[in-house]
């Protein structure tokens, strides 16, 4: 199980939960598991062609998955995955 931090804009899809648990050996598998259980987050994470959106970052611990192999980034026990969308408020 991997802990996933859900940002405020996506919590409507997770019944308000800040942290959810997910399964997967890679980030791609984890996100597939999450979108199965919380279908509402899918449009926020993926574009219509299935690619990760460019204004939503995903981190394994403190590292951006773009530098870990993107959806192939491996996950291990104890890892924390954070989903982080750009916000513009000031």
């Amino acid at each position: 199980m991997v802990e996933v931090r859900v940002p405020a804009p996506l919590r409507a899809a997770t019944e308000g939960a800040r942290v959810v648990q997910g399964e997967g050996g890679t980030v791609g598998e984890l996100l597939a598991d999450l979108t199965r259980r919380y279908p509402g987050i899918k449009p926020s994470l993926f574009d219509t062609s299935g690619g990760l959106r460019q204004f939503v970052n995903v981190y394994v611990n403190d590292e951006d998955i773009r530098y870990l192999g993107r959806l192939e980034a491996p996950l291990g026990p104890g890892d924390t995955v954070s989903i982080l969308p750009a916000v513009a408020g000031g």
Partner: protein
Amino acid sequence: MARVYVPTSWRRFTGGCARVEHDAPDVRQLLAWLIAEYPALGGEIFDPNGNLHRFVNVYVNDHGLDDLYGLETPLEREDEVAVIPAMAGGATRSRFTPEQAVRYSRHIILPEIGGVGQRKLLNAKVVLIGAGGLGSPAALYLAAAGVGTMGVVDFDTVDLSNLHRQILHGHANIGRPKVDSAHDRLADVNPDVKVVAHTEALTSENANEILGQYDIIVNGCDNFATRYLVNDAAYLLGKPLVDGSIFRFEGQATVFMPGKGCYRCLFPAPPPPGAVPSCAEAGVLGALPGMIGIIQATETVKLILDLGEPLVNRLLLYDALAMEFREVKIRRDPECPLCGDNPTIKELIDYEAFCGAPMAATGG
């Protein structure tokens, strides 16, 4: 024997001695002995009425006399007494007015800042993009710190719905331009500060001219189009960008140093219009921008003073509900169209077209 620490600028009165020792029952009698021993120090420490100069601070074991018993503070053996003129650390003694020496005394006595650092703050030029939620606390602390020139860019007027978080503005200023309200408030906080009002929207046409006048850019704007504009302009001008943004109960802050990654490296593209609601649509905790704006002010002061570890290549995440701070890494993306290895953006572009959205208010 109490030991008296003599600051560098006064050692010419003590034959170069950094420390002198004397047995005295209290601070008053110790100082009386000191000026009897070194008469030239008398006029430096006391005014003609025999009171301590307002710009001289006396500490007993690092505690100011105000927090002890004043000149009657009793002394014991081994006590360390420091007599510090507020201008210590400055190259010349007359650089601060007596009022400045008092106003900035708590900065100046910090060894990391001193008179030299305070002079850097007074000489610094910082521009705030937006006098809203983030710009308000950032501007107040930067003005209080004595940042000598502060530009404020905002075309909006003060609205009643701003006041639960935009603490630069008060009820009496509803309907006034935010830059005018900001000017008056900052002048009251610190008359040393020259506030430059830019009552206009930042655009691709005016950004280089406005931002080019300043050393550091503090971003408190409220829309993606302006965020990409400010990012690109800061990089192309070679200026540090102290960035912050907020949403509901959560905030993000970082410092982009040219060549070490930029906003496009962090978020390569903006969300489509309407995908992320604004503060007006989604709401925001009033104190949230206070936390992020003060982090921006802190980072700005650190950059001016070249102090500590700047928030570079790190994105600080603040969650008010969890009361939790976390960090993730930001890397310069070699593929970045602005600061990557083969850049394609070499001048400012049409950001409303890029974001598919207008540059609405500048400091929401």
